[in-house]
């Protein structure tokens, strides 16, 4: 991941740079003694991450956060925990490091960064491979039956079994929702209730706390409703 360091203290920048050197995935492409210079750089350069000091003259780190459009991910570096917590509310702020930053704390931050940046990459790979296969084999009476993802309407948990509903068939398989969920592409399926996973493409309509999949009325649990609503292409 490409990063820049913004801090008015040269010694602070040197420490972050040295700590970054110990993490092969992080490449420091530039460093700036103030936020204004960093803003100019960001106009013409694409980066993944900023190590940003909060206390800076002219434009503070918080001002910078509020000024920059489409900000990359940010790790705050500060001597004031209070300010850091205040700014931590922004979704693109991944962590804050209290100065002087210990090597141990920095490595914990690096693990967090790895999870954020590399997880998205592996998710993408997984989705791509699923898109290529586009099907799932289920074991019924020692027979492996191929199901196309687009044919699956919904999956219902029934004790030690799950029932997979397709347009023409209903298959009963000895498995769990958790297991099958891992095999399904996240972009196409969603668990809407502790007993139901639905195929997004098969939704007919949504009313209050239920979703209609062909003729099946499926309950939506309160905890799953926000994700369902978020993923809808609402007019």
């Amino acid at each position, binding site marked *: 991941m490409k990063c820049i360091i913004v801090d008015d203290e040269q*010694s602070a920048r040197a420490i972050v740079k040295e700590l970054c050197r110990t993490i092969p995935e992080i490449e420091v492409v530039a460093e700036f003694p103030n936020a204004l210079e960093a803003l100019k750089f960001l106009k013409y350069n694409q980066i993944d991450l900023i190590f940003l000091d909060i206390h800076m003259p002219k434009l503070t780190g918080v001002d910078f956060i509020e000024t920059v459009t489409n900000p990359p991910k940010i790790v705050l570096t500060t001597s004031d925990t209070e300010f850091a917590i205040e700014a931590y509310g922004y979704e693109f702020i991944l962590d804050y490091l209290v100065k002087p930053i*210990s090597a141990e704390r920095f490595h914990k931050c690096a693990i967090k960064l790895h999870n954020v940046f590399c997880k998205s990459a592996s998710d993408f790979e997984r989705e791509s491979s699923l898109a290529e296969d586009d099907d799932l084999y289920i074991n019924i009476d020692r027979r492996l039956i191929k199901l196309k993802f687009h044919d699956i309407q919904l999956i219902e948990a029934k004790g030690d079994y799950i029932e997979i509903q397709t347009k023409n068939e209903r298959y009963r398989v000895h498995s769990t929702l958790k297991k099958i969920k891992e095999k399904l592409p996240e972009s196409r399926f969603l668990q809407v209730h502790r007993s139901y996973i639905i195929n997004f493409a098969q939704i007919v309509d949504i009313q209050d706390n239920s979703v209609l999949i062909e003729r099946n009325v499926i309950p939506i649990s309160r905890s799953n409703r926000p994700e369902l609503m978020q993923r809808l292409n609402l007019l």
Partner: protein
Amino acid sequence: MTERPNLNYIKEISGGNEDFEKKFLTIIQTEFPKEKNDYIENLAANNLEESAKIVHKIKHKLGILGLTGGYKLAIKYEEDLKYGNTRLEKEFQDILKSVEEFILKIA
């Protein structure tokens, strides 16, 4: 017992990288005297808000040089200065002096 500045933190960060240690100490040797002078000038001019900002920067260096007590005192002093209170000036001055002596010694 009075605490003394040390290089433990710098050695922890460097992981034995002597080039970094040398470069870093050069930075400290340049940055610290400038910050100290700025602090003294602003304090003399009774510009306490600006003095607090400089104490904030110096505070980080006290932490870097292992002055845990000095770091804590700087936190209080920075806050005091924001409210126009200079009661910790003498104690802070002593800490600055010990850092200055240390920097000269390692030069």
